[in-house]
């Protein structure tokens, strides 16, 4: 079965584009309305759903892009002689979470929340292109934000797609338990 010509055009554009492309850009290039592009993307996401073909359609970093199906990851690394991306360390993941949720955020603020300065985590994340400097605070501290690459590598279509941070708050029960645990320890001592 052949795809419609707009769907084919959109697929070709995403194939060629080096970065994710926004719907508005696709519409302008294809000389179609955004609604038509949305419809074409809808059809395409059916054809290129995970597990169907070697290429999948992804909505990341504010636009649409094609990616190789994860199934091919080991073969792709053999062909392109690419080592597996190293996982994030605990320190890197925490620093990244703080930047992602609180950006723009200065280096001292990151340190205040983590309790340690974490220079090297910030540096590694910068080197890996996941965060970048976005200016200086009025006290001269470097301010950080996440990059489009971060959204791409984490499969986020935008920063607004990060789940609400309150989701990770200790539940009132957990919080009560933490306080309780501390206080109980105190009472035990008092009872000694």
């Amino acid at each position: 079965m052949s795809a419609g010509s707009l769907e084919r055009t959109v697929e070709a554009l995403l194939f060629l584009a080096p970065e994710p492309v926004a719907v508005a850009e696709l519409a302008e290039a294809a000389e179609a309305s955004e609604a038509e592009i949305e419809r074409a993307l809808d059809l395409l996401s059916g054809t290129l759903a995970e597990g169907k073909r070697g290429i999948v359609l992804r909505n990341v970093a504010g636009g649409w892009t094609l990616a190789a199906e994860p199934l091919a990851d080991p073969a792709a690394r053999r062909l392109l002689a690419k080592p597996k991306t190293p996982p994030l360390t605990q320190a890197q993941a925490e620093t990244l979470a703080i930047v992602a949720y609180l950006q723009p955020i200065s280096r001292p603020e990151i340190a205040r929340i983590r309790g340690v300065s974490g220079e090297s985590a910030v540096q590694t994340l910068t080197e890996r292109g996941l965060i970048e400097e976005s200016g200086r605070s009025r006290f001269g501290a470097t301010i950080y934000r996440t990059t489009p690459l971060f959204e791409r590598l984490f499969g986020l279509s935008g920063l607004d797609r990060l789940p609400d941070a309150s989701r990770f708050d200790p539940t009132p029960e957990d919080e009560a338990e933490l306080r309780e645990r501390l206080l109980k320890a105190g009472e035990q001592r008092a009872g000694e």
Partner: protein
Amino acid sequence: MRTAELELDLDVFAGPFDLLLAVVLREEIDLRELDLAELVLVYIERLEQTGELDLEAATEFLVLIASLLELKSRLLLPQAPDEPELAPEEAADELLARMLEYRRYRDAASYLGGLFEEGRDYHYRAAPLPAELRRVALDAARPTYEPDSLAVAIGDLLRVPPPPDTSHIRPTVSLERRLRALRDVLAHRSSFDFDEHFGSEDRLTQAVTLFALLELHKKGEATWKQRENFGAIEVVAR
């Protein structure tokens, strides 16, 4: 080693770390009396004993100790006039709040870590654009360059620079040629008088010939005799 289970034996307190926090929170111990450096030393000693580093626990310890340090410094330092004094119960609340805030991002980190794990199996295309997209389309091309620039370039290429002026360069004497001159003479005679053969040459040529003679001496082809200062030099083949 869980931070909470760290056994402490400090000047003002003995018991597990957990308990220390509790008593600080309940203001049973004045934070100002607590030697935090000692606390850190105990922790490090304990780490060395167990020989294992639980990163998560270590991070939690650091968050706590950093919070305690900050609270203590705020208790010790004079307050800025516009900053309300930190009451002890507020300090305790802040410590708890700090722990809760840290936990939020610790858990967010593990969520992001999961996304990253999924994401790193996807590869994106990094091939360059096809050549035709990297150049101007024929139908979009507008006159941009001056045709005369081509004719000018041809004119430049037809220009041959004048032969270099060498009048300022003094005639040179080649060591190689002087060596050949010496060898020519030695090929026919076992010895000869230097002045007789080269005395009529200019000073530079004579000097280079003498230098060539040193070269022959070094190679073991010739030697010389001079019976008195400034006397005749007799070159002898070897």
